[in-house]
C-alpha cells in the first residue's frame, strides 16, 4: 500500500518554470510520478516537459484532479504559495524550500490544520513511495520497493542510509522527509502511526538529529508499536548552542541533546545504531 502517496497520486508542481522546478519535474517524471500540471504565475499556457502550466492553482484544478502539490518556490514567496495550495483544497502539500521564516511556517501550519491538509516539510527532500511515486528531490537510483518504512529529518544522510538498506537487500515501502526546520508539518509520530497501520511496512528506520523533542515524542509512540524500529541520531559531537546547518538542529538550554534522544528511544524499545552503516544489520536482527 505505502503511505500518503502512491502510484495513483496526481501531482502539481508549483514553481515549475524555475530552474529547480523544471529540473526536478524531469527527474520525477523519469521516476514514474504522475505530474499532471504545473503553476507559475504569468506563464500559463506554456508546457514544461510536456506538463501544462497554469497561472494559478485554482486554474490548474479546474482542469485536473490534483492530490498533491510540491513547492519549488523561493523562501520569501513560499508562504503565499502554500496558502494557495491549502485554500484550493489540495490534500498533501510538500514544501521543499529551505530558509522560510519560522513565523511564516507557523502560519502555514495553522491554516493547514484548519483545512486538514497534510504538510510535508518545509526544508524537506520530499516523499518517495518506492517504485511508484517520488515527490521531491532525492536521486532516483537508490530507492527500491520493499518493506522498510523510513522517516527522517535530514536529506543526504537519509540517502546514505537508504542506499545502505538497498545494498543489503532491504527495499523501502515509503521514505518520508520531515524536513530540517524547527516547525514542520508531519512529525515522527504522525508517520509512525501510518507505518504501523500500513500492511506493506514491516519495520521502520527513524533518522533523527539533535534539537527539539521530536524523537522523545516519537519514543512515547514507539512503546506502543508492534513493528520494530531502528534509529540513527546525528549530532553526537555537536556543541550546545550552535545551529548545525538545519534550523531545528540546535541544543538549547539543555534540551534536544543526543543523549536524551538515544535514552528515550532505547527505553521505548527501539534499536539505536551507533553508525549509519549499522542500520541494515539491526533491521535484519529485528526482523529475525
Amino acid at each position, binding site marked *: 500500500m505505502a503511505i500518503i502517496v502512491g502510484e495513483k497520486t496526481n501531482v502539481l508542481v508549483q514553481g515549475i518554470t524555475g530552474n529547480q522546478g523544471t529540473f526536478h519535474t524531469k527527474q520525477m517524471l523519469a521516476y514514474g510520478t504522475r505530474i499532471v500540471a504545473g503553476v507559475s504565475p504569468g506563464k500559463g499556457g506554456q508546457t514544461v516537459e510536456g506538463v501544462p502550466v497554469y497561472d494559478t492553482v485554482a486554474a490548474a484544478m479546474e482542469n485536473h484532479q490534483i492530490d498533491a502539490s510540491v513547492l519549488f518556490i523561493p523562501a520569501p514567496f513560499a508562504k503565499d504559495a502554500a496558502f494557495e495550495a491549502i485554500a484550493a483544497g489540495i490534500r498533501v502539500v510538500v514544501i521543499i524550500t529551505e530558509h522560510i521564516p519560522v513565523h511564516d511556517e507557523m502560519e502555514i501550519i495553522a491554516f493547514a490544520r484548519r483545512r486538514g491538509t497534510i504538510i510535508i516539510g518545509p526544508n524537506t527532500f520530499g516523499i518517495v513511495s518506492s517504485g511508484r511515486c517520488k515527490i521531491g528531490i532525492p536521486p532516483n537510483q537508490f530507492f527500491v520497493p520493499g518493506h522498510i518504512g523510513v522517516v527522517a529529518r535530514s536529506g543526504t544522510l537519509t540517502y546514505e542510509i537508504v542506499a545502505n538498506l538497498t545494498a543489503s537487500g532491504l527495499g523501502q515501502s515509503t521514505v518520508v522527509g520531515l524536513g530540517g526546520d524547527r516547525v*514542520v508539518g508531519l512529525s515522527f509520530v504522525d508517520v509512525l502511526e501510518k507505518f504501523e497501520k500500513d500492511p506493506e511496512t514491516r519495520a521502520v528506520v527513524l533518522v533523527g538529529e539533535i534539537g527539539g523533542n521530536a524523537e522523545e515524542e516519537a519514543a512515547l509512540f514507539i512503546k506502543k508499536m508492534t513493528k520494530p524500529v531502528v534509529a540513527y541520531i546525528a549530532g553526537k559531537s555537536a556543541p550546545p548552542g550552535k545551529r548545525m546547518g538545519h534550523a531545528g538542529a540546535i541544543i538549547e538550554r539543555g534540551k534536544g541533546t543526543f543523549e536524551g534522544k538515544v535514552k528515550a528511544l532505547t527505553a521505548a524499545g527501539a534499536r539505536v545504531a551507533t553508525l549509519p552503516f549499522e542500520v541494515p544489520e539491526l533491521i535484519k536482527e529485528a526482523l529475525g
Partner: protein
Amino acid sequence: MKLYEYMGKELFNRYGLTIPRGKMVASPEEAAAVAAEIGAPVVIKSQVLSGKRGKGGGIKFADTPEEAREAAAQVLGMTVQGLKVEMILVEEKLAIDHEFYVAITVDGAAKAPVLIASAQGGMDIEEVPDEFIVKEHLDVCLGIQPYLCREVCRRLGITGAVAKEFSRLLPILYRIFREKDAELVEINPLVLSGEKLIAADAKVTIDDEALYRQKDLPVVDDRTEAERQAHALGLSYVQLDGNIAVMANGAGITMGTLDIIQHYGGAPANFLDAGGGTGMEATAKALEILLSTNPRVIFINIFGGITRCDDVARALVKVKQEKGINVPVVIRLVGTNEEEGVRLLREHGIEAYKVMHEAAAKAVELARAQN
C-alpha cells in the same frame, strides 16, 4: 540573531513598554556622567551576548558617580563567559517590590507560539518548579486577546492596577514577537516597582531567516571570519576546536561525518555543509576557507544527489593547482557522476574512497600521524 540587552530595551521602549532610565556608555567617565544625571544609585551592566552575566562579575552596583566610574573601569575590558566587554549600560537601580518572568517563544512541538509567565522571576526559569509556571500556547490567528490576559493574571495572582498594566503589556510583547519575526522575546525579571511594571532585562532573538525583511533592526554579527565567508557563499559553517577540517553535502550527513570522526577518536575542526546545488566555484572557495583554518587533515564526504561528484572533483583539483594543498586530503565520492569524479581525481594523484566509515578512519589516522 541575538540582540544586546540595550537594543532589546530600545525596542521595548519604542513599542510602549516601560524600561529603566539609563544610557549606553563605553568609558568610566561617561558612566560617572550618566550616574550623575540619574542622580540615584545605578547598576552597571556589561553588554555581552551571554546569560549569567552577574555570576561572571559583569553586573555591578554603584551608589555614587565616583563608584560608577570605578565599577565601569572594572567591567569594561573584562571577559564575561568568554566574551570581551566593550560597552556597558548604566541604569537606575530599581526599587523592587516583586520580580516576574514573562516570555513569548516558538514551541516547535506545538508548531505555534507559546507564552510563558511566572511569579518567580529574577532567576533561571529552568529552575522554577512547573506548578509556578503558566504556559499558554497561542494561535497565530488570535494572538493575545484580553480574556487571556485576565486568565494569566488570575493564575499569577495579580490583581487591580497591576493586572491592568500586565494586561496592557502582554499584547505589546506579542506584537513585538510577531512584527519583528522573533524566536524569543523574554523579560526576566519584569520588575514590579510601586504599580509600574518595568523590563529590567531584555532578551530578544530574531529569526535569522527573516533578517531580509527586518532591515530596520540593528545588525549583530557574532560570527567568526570563516563563518561569515561561508555564509556569503550560501553555506553553513560552524567553528569547532579540533584539527580535521570537514566538508560534506547536507546538514545531517555533515553532522554524521563529525560523529564518525569523533567515534574513531578524531577531533573535527568545523562543520561545513556545502550541500545541494553548490557549484564548482563555491565548492572551491569553501575548500579555501577550510585551508585557511590550518587543519591537519581535510576530509570531504560527498553523497551526491543534486551535488555532482565531478564538480567536487574539479573544485579540489582547482584549489590544488592554484593554491596548493599542503595537508593530506581524504575524499569520499559517491553518487551523481561518480565515475567521472573519481577518474578526474585519480589523474591528479588523489584516490577517492567509496565507503564513508573507511574514509573517516583514514582521516583520523592521518591526523594522528601528523603529530
